[in-house]
């Protein structure tokens, strides 16, 4: 067994403590309970829409819910809170001194921690994905066909999650290795989340022409994640997005041509009044922006992750431990 695997196993034990698991999973399921019990309750009242309509509408909702919450803020928050202190805490508490005197490469130690966080996050995410489906099923009384459609999405959402977990895991480990101060780490983390989820929408709203003309999507992490998500979710049989979801995703990530107008239209008029000729139930689909091939976005995310890990490697190997 390799030495990173030993560190990974130990870190997994720490991260998989029962109390922590219960709390983290419960936190992940709260939005599902809120949306199921309050926000979407009216829309899915029995008999309010056809089965086909129900399935497609809920698939759309679930795709957005998963992108923004489960594979978005929740997963990143979980990674940041768990991984931010991985290295700096060891140094602050003095345990790193003994670790660096042991015959294990410093980067191997980091990789062990990285893998443990990756595995834990993905496992918890899987539980929250299935748990959310169960909660929606129970609270909204979804038909089995709709539930099957949601279950069919899980694999693809999970696949996308691997990318976002790798990215944030690497960035978090890098911040934990490069910086010691709690304040600077918190500020950096907030900036990172802002950069990924906030900069794109603001840029597109404030300066829509520049976003396209100056190819700003290259440096918009939100676009790359959205581009990947759309491409991956389209692989699912049930993964077709409703125009509403496309509008939300367009606003958030720039993957669909959507401004505020489209969002308002989709939100307030797009449920049962209009029909898409393709599926005979929805308003017309929004046009994809297709700025970049999704593979380029995946590659860029992986390159950033590798660069972050590279930075962590250089930092930990040059670090003097007292």
């Amino acid at each position, binding site marked *: *067994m390799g030495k990173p695997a030993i*560190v990974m196993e130990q870190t997994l034990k720490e991260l998989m403590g029962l109390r922590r698991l219960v709390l983290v999973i419960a936190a992940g399921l709260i939005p599902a309970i809120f949306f199921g019990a309050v926000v979407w309750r009216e829309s899915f009242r029995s008999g309010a829409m056809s089965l086909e309509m129900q399935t497609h509408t809920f698939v759309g909702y679930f795709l957005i819910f998963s992108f923004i919450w489960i594979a978005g803020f929740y997963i990143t928050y979980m990674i940041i809170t768990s991984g931010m202190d991985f290295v700096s805490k060891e140094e602050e508490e003095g345990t790193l*001194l003994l670790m660096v005197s042991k015959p294990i490469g410093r980067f191997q130690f980091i990789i062990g921690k990285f893998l443990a966080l990756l595995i834990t996050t993905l496992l918890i995410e899987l539980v929250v994905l299935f748990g959310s489906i169960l909660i929606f099923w129970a609270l909204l009384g979804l038909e089995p066909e709709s539930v099957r459609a949601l279950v069919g999405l899980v694999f693809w959402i999970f696949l996308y999650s691997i990318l976002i977990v790798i990215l944030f895991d690497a960035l978090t480990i890098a911040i934990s290795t490069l910086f010691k101060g709690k304040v600077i780490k918190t500020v950096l983390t907030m900036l990172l989340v802002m950069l990924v989820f906030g900069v794109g929408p603001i840029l597109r709203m404030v300066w829509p022409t520049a976003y396209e003309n100056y190819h700003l999507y290259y440096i918009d992490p939100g676009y790359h994640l959205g581009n990947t998500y759309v491409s991956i979710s389209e692989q699912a049989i049930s993964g077709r997005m409703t125009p509403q979801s496309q509008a939300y995703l367009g606003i958030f990530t720039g993957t669909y041509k959507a401004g505020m107008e489209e969002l308002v239209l989709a939100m307030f008029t797009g449920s049962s009044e209009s029909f898409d000729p393709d599926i005979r139930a929805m308003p017309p689909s929004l046009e994809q922006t297709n700025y970049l091939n999704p593979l380029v976005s995946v590659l860029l995310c992986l390159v950033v992750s590798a660069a972050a890990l590279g930075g962590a490697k250089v930092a930990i190997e040059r670090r003097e431990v007292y």
Partner: protein
Amino acid sequence: MIETRNLTKRFGDFTAVDGINLAVQQGTIHGFVGPNGAGKTTTMKMLTGAIWCSQGEGYIKGHEIGSTPAKQIIGYSPEHAFFYNDMVASDYLSYMARICGVERSEARKKALDLLNWLDLGGFAESKVGGFSAGMKQRLGLAQALIHEPELLILDEPTANMDPSGRISILDKLRELSHESNVTIFLSSHILSELEQVVDFMTMIDRGRIVVEGNMTELRRRFSGNHFLLKTSQNEKILEVIKEKGLFRESWTDTEDFIHMISDDTTALRKVVVEVVVQTGAELEHFSEERASLQDIYRKTMSMEEEE
């Protein structure tokens, strides 16, 4: 086992370790002594790879310091060891063992054996966070020993321990050295205890080595050619030796021992024997006074201050 050449560590303008050349022989217990801030801990941390040297080089059994092969040879216990407080002692040691390459099946057995050997067997399943300072010191030694290293680097291994704990640890170190041929490089401020175990000693002050050598030589060197003599005819014998001009200073203490400081020790030894035989006096005691580690330390440090 340890060899350094011009090993230097600078922190900005301050030179903590100033070009030291260490040579620690295999199988020996080598003391590393000096006042606070002399550079002992910094040197040890450079040897274990926790910090990097600013200049010079160092090798552990031929492997560059800080490299994984070098660290495989070392077991290191810092003065203030910090552990994962939520782990129980046996789990902690098993984890450390596996990090050092010990198989999972062996690791737990080794952990329990070591805890028993260090009188911590009753606390194997206790959380480390609840350990006293002395127990943590023992655990620190246990984690250093867990992979049966050839070289132990111990920074103040008996600090925070009560006298019986200190004696027990020193006994164990002696046992390790004699029975397992483990090389031990250790620092301590308790010189009287250190003296009982060390074969070699390096004294360091302001980052520089001021004295080094094996203990027998050092004791002789620092004894100042000081001889003790007691016979049945002290006065007569002292008179004869005085006539031959073989000592520069002498006095008799309250227990009737003649103290002589001589510059020609070989001649003095010879003359004492001859005079005792000639006078027919009864020889009760004749020895060369041995300097203690404390004497050596005191003399060296005062010479350093004078310089």
